[in-house]
């Protein structure tokens, strides 16, 4: 008798919390925030190019580069999120960070300090942002490769920087995907004369 009640209540509450609730939220979300509900996907020339919430790989010098990623074998695998889970005294972490620092210094000559977020893997492996310091370090390289004035690139960085919420919560971040898309949209008029 008690068991029969338990089974019936399990089924009733499964229908309520596991079926009715998520479907109702889906319907309301689609009506109120359709773009976000569908994953904030953005298209370029009619093709989905990614989501500003989800980081992607950038290797070419003319693009700002994101953080190292431990998601999937190639990094930024948005079907396989996760961090490196390397411990603080693990030699493998020391070796990896040292190699990344060398690579950053090689591709950005003249860089002073290398911001820690640019050489450490994020928790999700999909961090879409870098710190403003990590973006500032890359401005000379990107400007030079694209033949742009540095102040124009710096203005784009500022335009793609998300401040703290209410100036208080979280940390500021620069969205790498939207920044690089904005760079690609720049008109040739933005080019500097000499270089």
């Amino acid at each position, binding site marked *: 008798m008690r068991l029969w009640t338990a089974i019936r*209540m399990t089924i009733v509450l499964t229908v309520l919390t596991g079926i009715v609730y998520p479907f109702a939220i889906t319907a309301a979300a689609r009506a109120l925030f359709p773009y976000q509900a569908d994953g904030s996907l953005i298209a370029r020339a009619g093709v989905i190019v990614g989501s500003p919430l989800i980081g992607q790989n950038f290797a070419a010098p003319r693009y700002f580069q994101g953080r190292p990623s431990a998601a999937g074998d190639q990094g930024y695998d948005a079907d*396989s999120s996760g961090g490196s889970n390397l411990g*603080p*005294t693990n030699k493998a972490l020391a070796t990896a960070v040292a190699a990344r620092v060398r690579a950053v210094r090689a591709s950005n000559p003249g860089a002073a300090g290398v911001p820690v977020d640019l050489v450490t893997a994020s928790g999700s492996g999909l961090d879409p942002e870098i710190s403003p310091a990590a973006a500032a370090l890359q401005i000379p390289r990107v400007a030079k490769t694209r033949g742009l004035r540095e102040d124009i690139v710096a203005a784009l960085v500022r335009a793609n920087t998300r401040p703290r919420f209410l100036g208080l919560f979280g940390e500021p971040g620069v969205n790498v995907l939207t920044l690089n898309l904005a760079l690609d949209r720049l008109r040739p008029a933005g080019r500097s004369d000499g270089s």
Partner: protein
Amino acid sequence: MLANAVIQIGLFFLIAVAISVPLGHYMARVFAGESTFPDPALKPIERLIYRLGGVHPETEQTWIEYAVTMLLFSAAGMLLLYAQERLQGLLPLNPQGLGGVAPSLAFNTAASFTTNTNWQAYAGETTMSYLTQMAGLTFHNFVSAAAGIAIAIAVIRGFVQRNSKTIGNFWVDLTRATLWVLMPICVVMALALVWQGVPQNFAPYARAKTVEGATQTIAQGPVASQEAIKELGTNGGGFFNANSAHPYENPTPLANLIEMLAIIAIGAGLTHTFGRMVGDARQGWALFGAMALLFVMGAAVATWSEQRGNPMLTRAGADQSASATQSGGNMEGKEVRFGIVDSALWATVTTDTSCGAVNSMHDSFTPLGGLIPLVNMQIGEIIFGGVGSGLYGMLVMAVLAVFIAGLMVGRTPEYLGKKIEGREMKLAMLYVLIFPLVILIPAAIAVALPAGLAGISNPGPHGFTQILYAYTEASANNGSAFAGLNANTHFYNVTLALVMLAGRFLMKVPVLALAGSLAAKKTVPESAGTFPTNGAIFVVLLVGVILIVAALTFFPADALGPIVEQLAMRHGRLY
């Protein structure tokens, strides 16, 4: 950067207080059966649930009937989830065509979600179909949380009622916790999260052609509806492998703030529910004060240690200094939008409570920063705690504290007018002792067996910490992880599942017995010799008892893991 930490942690705490007081009073009205504002909408649904479920809401249950009902309901839900996981390949809402979950993993997950642990030995996006996530996991997120609240309410009734054989009706408490408390908050919160960018769809995974021309598969799903109850019910099982570090689960600092508040709200609110139901708000504030003290200590140490960073990163050439343009500190395993403060604060909140959702990878924390989550769980998750379980765990410690106070003055201890005698102390000690037993013995076995050692991913003392953390979180029903541990093996799936079940049900039954025993007692009037349990002295005594019990039990094990690793790290030793 000290200002940043103080402002963020301080504001978070103030908002949490502002929410928890009215929420606590509201819950007191709900479970006392008084009228509340959502009644017109919810009463018809409540009646329908009772009719369909065959429940007689007017029946009062003894503690044994209450416990048996809770156990039967948990068993039925666990079996249903196991079946759903095994058969998901044949069921609808599976656009990725994911196959059935392997038996030991399905058993582990069923135990994990039934016990409100939500330990995940699997990666959500590549293992669970949308139907399993919703009808299986979201359902358990709701009812395991509701069951926790129900038991906390039953324990409070034990203190309030006199000469009573009964402590309420499990089905009524379960249903009212779901309908009046969890569901309305979740609806609002889920939509707020969608607004911030959390997806809510049933689409196949999106395929993007990236700027550099590669193909990126982006996992989708009904994320927001699960995310809301995952935090509010202190469940913590992520939709995706990276949990709340994943930008789809936790896209912005505002989303992060909402989620952290949801984790702490009900646990903190129940102290005020308690105060109101026992008729003395200061009794609730005393418990709240003890919790707040322990919370602040943990948050301060974790933030300081993570901000101080890892000397090895500096030697490798990374700049860890905090400035206006970077958070600095130990950023391995952390997200830029959360930086150090929100990551360390979250790690504290998620282990103070039994949530276990993570927004950064605890495995990559500095040893001292990782010790805080570990100790928070070893204390028994009573710092606000799991919804329900935090309050009844704290009440057990309060019983212990008044007992020790009674020994000091040589008087029969009493708490809220109930004499604490041999039977109550035995039940309280059973609760206190089962917890470390099901952590330390299995962890010792795991480090002695090749099957246990095979799971370690970080060499040196950190590897031991990974195993200790896993059994601690399982027993504490937390579900956070030192996630490098390769736990999806038969050995870990089965042993951790058994520890989770023991940590939940072996501890709930003595608590309900304690409630039954207290309810049957008469209330003795306060006298000059009564130790006041609503003042600062009691708070200090309570915190002292909690810390001493945890230190006596766990310090030797912690010394072998994070403590020795901290010393090694400061001396530049690598493994």
